[in-house]
């Protein structure tokens, strides 16, 4: 496909050259020759062949051949766009084949811009391209990760969980919901590229401005990422193998900075906490200052009066009373021996884990057909035990041509089977995830009790519970039989035909079909206090979803003298839908995975269909679109696009929108007055303005009042019995027929330069105004419990600068290197909003994110800590709040009304970085190669919610930060009754954390930390064996490498990893609210994405 377009381009160039050149031929010896590209061995059409130092020359014909009359000793200068100009000395009269080396200048890249391909020098919009060779050096189970640090203006937030997708923002966050870009993979429009085999990827380009993305209209508002996969090439069949095997290491050390049990005992005494001190020395609850650790803990139905009256000693006669009844938790009498040294819960569930990937690719073809087959096996075991991603993938890409290459058709097919378990942010980035339990479960609790069952909060000294956290080892190990499997097919079939000389018609049908099945088992958590008696359970869910788009385009391309015109028009429809069936039940006699299904429950009434069974709302989009590009003398470029889209999610009358754009470029370096500047290889100034749209986050039911019924929401036992209900109805959704799409108006100005033969530079400035943001405005309760519709309300402005530069050079013959740096900086600003929005109201400390006019999206919200009250006089003389005692935080009186209350909450930091940057270094010396990728983010803040648990004393008993002992204010009346704290004074004025006796820690700057970081994403050393040595083995290339990933992370952030994927908005609702990409920068205990990996890899080609 590329080749054919390129070939046509070359033909046109030939014509052009014929017209504009005046060829002078002198009568000497006729020589013939051929020019081919060294990269693909195909003829180069239209290459300039000139006798050096003269004006004499010619251009190659459609077969790459040329004929020139030469004198011996002449030197030919052969040049062609995209290739290094080469001098060839003529010796005799032989037929000469000249093989041109591709130029590494990025300006000559062919870039896929969606419905078209363009040479980068002709592009007038903002299109970022990924150097795919660099990007692929980082082994990733989710292919969005290839983008991190590779394209300026693209922010990628990685997730450490195996197989979990990353969050991608192009030029900032533009709304309060999901700002996921549109992915176009081989023409298929979809919502992620996570599972595309990285080895199959040929190119990735990012359409950042309206000049480039407006052709995608209502789907292009968040930017577009265009991915193409490899095709076979005519010629010899090539067989290659790419593989690696490696080891991932969990973070090391006391990652949460937690105390030992002895320190915790001391803490409970210093807090004068009768309840918790009793855990440590139940014999003496009054003698503060002395403490000892209990040896055994117990809990249960039986009363062993001689055991555990103290709870701190062992009595073998009584530990024999241990009883565990898996069928009736009421009979349990559980005993555990405490871990005096403290259990390191984090490292109890994070272990070194292997990962590997093997891809075999076969490709080749003839003049009339090409093929590429690839097979991959990928297995990434997570460092969090029982998490993994396994994929078996197959790709078949074929092309065929007929009628002298005038008719072409083919397919790109991709199928995979995926088996995944756990670790998604849905279960990690919220309260109750096993990672959060590694700091919440008390260190004194052992992993296993005296009988080898799990230890936990249920068995405390004196039969008292030990906090309400869960044993994370139990949580993870119990997932051993959980699976999430999917069978996915995606790809397209296409046909295109050239006709009437200037026209090409193309039609492509592509889509994605996903079948999935997952099941999970809930074990009775007998070791936990709060859920000790919960029954076991089993849930299984299956479903399918699909989306497809069918695109037909008509292309026109013609040159008239210095005028070059290309145009195309298209028609497209997109459809999506699906359905899902899910069933859960409780009370199973056995959890044997080879037996279990929901119907095996012993309590039929526990079978529950309601939560996981639903129909997907079908969505249809219908579009017509077109683009015209005009170039004059390869100097002045202008392009315009228009697209009209109809989207079914809106009410008739509000469905259709038109999205235009214009862009222009001026290749200044082509002007005569610039020709003399030798250091300037190329310089282009370009600009664009246009509109795109966005309709995601809106349901197809949005326009309608909807009703539903449900066992738990509308049914009622009107008959008065114990277990019979009658079905009721209620309104579930309020419709708004006025709602329509979001509009993004983007202006972009950019410069592309190629300097000194070694430096390529692109810089651009943009302003993106997103208006009519789609989100639900909170309605008053007077309208009842039906959910509010999305309405158009609010504008957001993003403006910023993207810069990228590549420097490449060689020192001597053997040492070559290139350095690519890119930086993206944006400023995000909510410019209007009908109603201020607050997020995370379900947290333990209330809402702490505010979306309001004048603030960036996702701004943290709370009080500003100014210091710590030292004494009552200070409290009385400064603005204060109810409950303030010496040792409590002083908050800033933001509104100056003399008191501290909810109105003093203010903006306290943004999760958006000031800028993100990437640096790629590549070097080779003889057969050795070296590369390194650095990625950084500067100025982003993280809201460290973990500190609520570890750095406040009033939260539930659990692991606590050593800082609580060493850094907390001490109230001189801290050991007395509550009422007297107010009369105390702080005895350690240098303390930075509030006193243990303070009973709440609302959102404030206390939680907000600098989340800036610089990560060494990868460093690699490789060796390429001399092809001569391998020839006898039939091997044409063998490259081996060792690689380290995340070798270092430089950050001041105190949590596991400053790079935080979005979290679940309201954690108490158990993930009922979808994860939203704009809810980022909040740390509940995220799966760290900065774990070190060491790999050994091989690239082998036959």
């Amino acid at each position: 496909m590329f080749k054919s377009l390129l070939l046509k381009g070359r033909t046109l160039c030939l014509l052009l050259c014929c017209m504009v050149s005046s060829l002078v031929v002198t009568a000497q010896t006729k020589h013939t020759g051929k020019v081919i590209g060294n990269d693909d061995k195909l003829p180069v059409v239209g290459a300039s062949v000139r006798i050096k130092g003269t004006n004499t020359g010619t251009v190659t014909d459609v077969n790459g051949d040329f004929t020139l009359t030469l004198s011996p000793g002449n030197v030919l200068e052969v040049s062609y766009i995209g290739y290094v100009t080469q001098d060839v000395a003529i010796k005799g009269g032989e037929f000469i084949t000249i093989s041109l080396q591709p130029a590494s200048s990025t300006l000559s890249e062919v870039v896929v811009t969606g419905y078209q391909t363009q040479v980068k020098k002709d592009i007038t919009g903002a299109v970022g391209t990924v150097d795919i060779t660099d990007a692929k050096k980082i082994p990733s189970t989710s292919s969005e990760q290839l983008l991190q640090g590779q394209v300026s203006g693209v922010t990628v937030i990685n997730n450490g969980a195996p197989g979990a997708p990353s969050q991608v923002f192009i030029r900032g966050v533009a709304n309060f919901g999901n700002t996921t870009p549109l992915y176009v993979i081989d023409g298929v429009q979809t919502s992620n590229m996570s599972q595309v085999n990285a080895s199959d990827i040929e190119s990735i380009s990012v359409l950042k401005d309206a000049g480039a993305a407006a052709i995608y209209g209502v789907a292009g508002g968040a930017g577009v990422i265009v991915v193409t996969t490899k095709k076979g090439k005519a010629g010899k069949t090539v067989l290659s193998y790419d593989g690696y095997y490696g080891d991932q290491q969990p973070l090391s050390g006391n990652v949460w900075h937690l105390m030992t049990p002895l320190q915790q005992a001391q803490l409970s005494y210093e807090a004068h906490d009768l309840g918790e001190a009793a855990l440590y020395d139940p014999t003496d609850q009054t003698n503060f200052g002395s403490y000892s650790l209990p040896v055994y803990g117990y809990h249960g139905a039986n009363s062993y009066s001689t055991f555990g009256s103290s709870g701190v000693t062992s009595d073998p006669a009584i530990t024999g009373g241990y009883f565990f009844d898996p069928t009736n938790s009421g009979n349990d009498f559980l005993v555990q021996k405490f871990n005096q040294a403290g259990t390191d819960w984090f490292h109890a569930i994070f272990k070194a884990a292997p990962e590997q990937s093997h891809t075999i690719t076969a490709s080749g073809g003839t003049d009339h057909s090409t093929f590429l087959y690839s097979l991959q096996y990928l297995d990434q075991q997570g460092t969090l035990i029982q998490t993994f991603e396994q994929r078996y993938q197959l790709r078949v890409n074929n092309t065929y041509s007929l009628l002298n290459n005038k008719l072409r058709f083919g397919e790109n097919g991709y199928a995979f089977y995926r088996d995944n378990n756990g670790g998604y942010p849905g279960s990690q980035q919220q309260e109750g995830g096993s990672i959060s339990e590694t700091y919440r479960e008390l260190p004194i609790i052992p992993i296993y009790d005296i009988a080898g069952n799990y230890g936990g909060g249920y068995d405390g000294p004196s039969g008292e519970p030990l906090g309400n956290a869960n044993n994370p080892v139990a949580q993870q190990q119990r997932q051993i039989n959980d699976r999430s499997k999917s069978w996915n097919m995606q790809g397209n079939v296409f046909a295109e035909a050239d006709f009437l000389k200037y026209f090409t018609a193309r039609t492509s049908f592509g889509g994605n079909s996903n079948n999935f099945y997952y099941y999970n088992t809930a074990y009775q958590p007998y070791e936990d206090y709060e859920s000790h008696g919960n029954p076991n359970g089993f849930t299984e869910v299956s479903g399918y979803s699909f989306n497809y788009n069918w695109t037909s385009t008509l292309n026109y391309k013609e040159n008239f003298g210095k005028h070059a015109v290309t145009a195309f028009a298209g028609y497209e429809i997109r459809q999506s839908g699906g359905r899902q069936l899910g069933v859960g039940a409780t009370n199973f006699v056995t959890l044997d995975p080879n037996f279990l299904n929901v119907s095996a429950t012993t309590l039929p009434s526990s079978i529950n269909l309601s939560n996981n069974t639903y129909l997907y709302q079908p969505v249809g989009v219908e579009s017509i679109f077109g683009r015209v590009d005009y170039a004059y003398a390869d100097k002045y470029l202008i392009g315009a696009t228009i697209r009209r889209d109809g989207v079914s999610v809106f009410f008739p009358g509000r469905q259709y929108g038109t999205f235009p754009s214009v862009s222009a470029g001026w290749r200044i370096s082509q002007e005569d007055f610039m020709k003399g500047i030798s250091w300037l290889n190329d310089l282009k100034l370009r600009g664009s303005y246009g509109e795109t749209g966005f309709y995601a986050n809106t349901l197809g039911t949005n326009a309608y009042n909807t009703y539903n019924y449900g066992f738990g929401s509308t049914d009622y036992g009107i008959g008065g019995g114990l277990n019979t209900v009658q079905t009721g109805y209620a309104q579930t959704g309020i419709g708004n027929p006025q709602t329509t799409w979001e509009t993004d108006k983007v202006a972009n100005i950019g410069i592309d330069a190629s300097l000194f033969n070694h430096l390529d530079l692109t810089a651009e400035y943009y302003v993106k105004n997103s208006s009519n943001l789609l989100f639900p405005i909170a309605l008053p309760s007077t309208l009842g419990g039906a959910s509010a519709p999305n309405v158009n309300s609010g504008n957001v402005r993003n403006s910023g600068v993207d810069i990228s530069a590549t420097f490449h050079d060689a020192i001597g013959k053997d040492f070559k290197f290139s350095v690519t740096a890119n930086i993206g900086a944006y400023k995000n600003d909510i410019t209007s909003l009908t109603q201020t929005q607050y997020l995370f109201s379900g947290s333990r400390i209330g809402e702490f994110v505010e979306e309001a006019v004048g603030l960036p999206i996702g701004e943290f919200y709370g009080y500003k800590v100014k210091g710590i009250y030292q004494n009552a006089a200070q409290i009385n003389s400064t603005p204060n709040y109810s409950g303030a005692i010496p040792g409590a935080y002083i908050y800033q009186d933001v509104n100056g009304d003399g008191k501290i209350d909810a109105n003093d909450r203010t903006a306290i930091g943004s999760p958006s970085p000031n800028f993100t940057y990437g640096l790629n270094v590549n070097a080779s010396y003889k057969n050795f190669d070296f590369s390194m990728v650095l990625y950084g983010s500067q100025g982003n803040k993280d809201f460290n919610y973990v500190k609520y648990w570890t750095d406040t004393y009033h939260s539930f008993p659990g692991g606590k930060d050593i800082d609580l002992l060493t850094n907390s204010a001490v109230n001189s009346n801290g050991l007395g009754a509550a009422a007297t704290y107010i009369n105390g004074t702080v005895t350690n004025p240098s303390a930075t954390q509030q006193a243990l006796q303070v009973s709440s820690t609302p959102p404030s700057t206390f939680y907000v930390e600098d989340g800036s970081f610089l990560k060494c994403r990868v460093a690699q050393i490789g060796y390429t064996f001399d092809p001569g040595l391998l020839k006898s083995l039939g091997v044409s290339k063998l490259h081996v490498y060792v690689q380290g990933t995340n070798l270092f992370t430089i950050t001041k952030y105190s949590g596991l990893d400053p790079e935080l994927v979005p979290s679940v908005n309201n954690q108490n609702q158990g993930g009922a609210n979808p994860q939203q990409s704009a809810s980022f920068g909040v740390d509940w205990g995220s799966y760290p994405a900065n774990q070190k990996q060491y790999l050994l890899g091989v690239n082998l080609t036959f």
Partner: protein
Amino acid sequence: MKKLNFKIVALCSIAIFTAAYSCKKVLDKVPTGVLPGASLANKTGVDGLLIGAYSLLDGYYQGQPGTNYGSGISNWTYGGIGADEAYKGSTTDDQGPDLPQIEQHAGIAVTNSYTSSKWQVCYAGVARANAVIQEVPLVKDGSESAAAGTVAIAEARFLRGLYHFELAKIWLNVPYVDETVTYVAGNYNVPNPGPIWDKIEADFTFAMANLPKTQPQAGRANYYAAEAFLAKALVYDHKYSTALPLLTDCIQNGETASGAKYALEPFNNNFNASTKNGPESVFAAQMTVNDGSGGQNDDGGDVLNFPGGGTYTGCCGFYVPSYNLANAYQVDANGLPMFQIDATTGFPKYNDTMLPNDHGLAATDPFTPTNVAVDSRLDWTVGRRGIPYLDWGLCAGESWTRGDVVPYTPKKNSFYHAAQASTTDNFGTWATNQGSANNYNIIRFADVILWHAECEVQGGDLADAEKDVNMIRARAADKTGWVKTYADNSNPAGGFTNTPAANYQVGLYSGQFAANGAAYAMAAIIMERQLEFGMEGQRFFDLSRQDAATKGPLGVGYMAGVMNSYYKADNRISNPVLGKAAFTSGRDELYPIPESQIEIEGGKLVQNPKY
């Protein structure tokens, strides 16, 4: 060659245009997985909407904003913990900061999430009732007679009145939302200029006029339920003389929806799922279990309110009776309550001495239950050490609690071990057997009798008031309804003896009302309600409706006096939560209106005084 080329292009074009034409309806998508409004304009739809409106009587629903604890119908939070009868329980910070604020009244945040969810669920109930009223006129298919339509509207207006009543007793100044308020009309920012008793009374008056005396299903509202609610609204509206004849009619002629004559039944039958909808149940929120809802139709507002340890391996140790409540059951030599204020301590006399209990003792320390004389209702209301806890065994006192500041556990919402399988289910995925099928009686007949007594006092007939109070006391004095000892303490399932579990003494008044005057009579009635309805989420409202803050007859500072005396009395035992309590007169008799609603309504809604 050329021809073939043309043929192929032509063929492809035809294929494309044919397919494009057949896909013409790309945008024609109907809402999927939900019902459009039009499908409800028939009898089934109206009935279903009405059931949907009833279904919020339990105070919560799946998918609601906020937690079920904050919105449950029993009002254990606002009515119980917010008053002087119960503590939050559990560990100090559990359910903080919302629930400790309600216990302390020292500054309930306008952002309190409990009050926010209660507010929202009540208005969801109002909206569902309005949906019925809107739908009935749209039924044109002949499936519902005019008479049936009127009854449906009457039930809906009954429910609308009831949900507004819930709101009014907590916040007093609340928006009244009728069926004309809709999204399309844009009139949904409804103001709250003051009390809405007149509108609530109008709804109940309409309901009473149009509801039958008996209904085919026990859970439906009938004529007498509407009459009782109308009377209750009038009592809260301090229109005692208007309420009196309605209450008299209820007492003399009232019957349940199933047709049973109103009567006082054995006390504990009101708190037992197996005997629910008895003759005392004027109107109840129906609770069901094992109905396929995963616990969403049981008494889910109270899932935290079970003992926190011990034989009863439940969870979570919330809603523990206060010392004040337990002490209140102490009686004088005549078996009468000791509500008079002790001039030296400032406490009610019952609070001068603590009812002996096991606070501070370990489970293994010896303990003998006290022989101090108490009202028999104590041991159906408060779990205390050494007394049978239903059929679970002897309550172990403090070791059954969680947080250890109090030796008492809640009891009225608990269930019999023997009936566990049929009367409980698991609330959601974690609260095992903590969803109970115990109905919550929003009005029980004892209420009607004591309101009648109150109206008689306001009307000056103290003798008749005393007669009413004695009806209640006589039931408590009936030995057959007392808690008895186990036949075998080690086998609580083995049944009970005929020996009372403690020294119960319940005496009747004999002319004290008339002799001591109206103020004494009112105090005695309020005390009787405290004992009768202890741990039923009513106490706060019984105090606030007497206070001047709600234009009640007992004047400015009445409630603050009761509450601050309680804090002082109970803080004789160190208590990290109650230790910070303080009740401000003129503010804390009402709860703060959720700030979020004030913001959303853009200024139409006004905060209650001093918040």
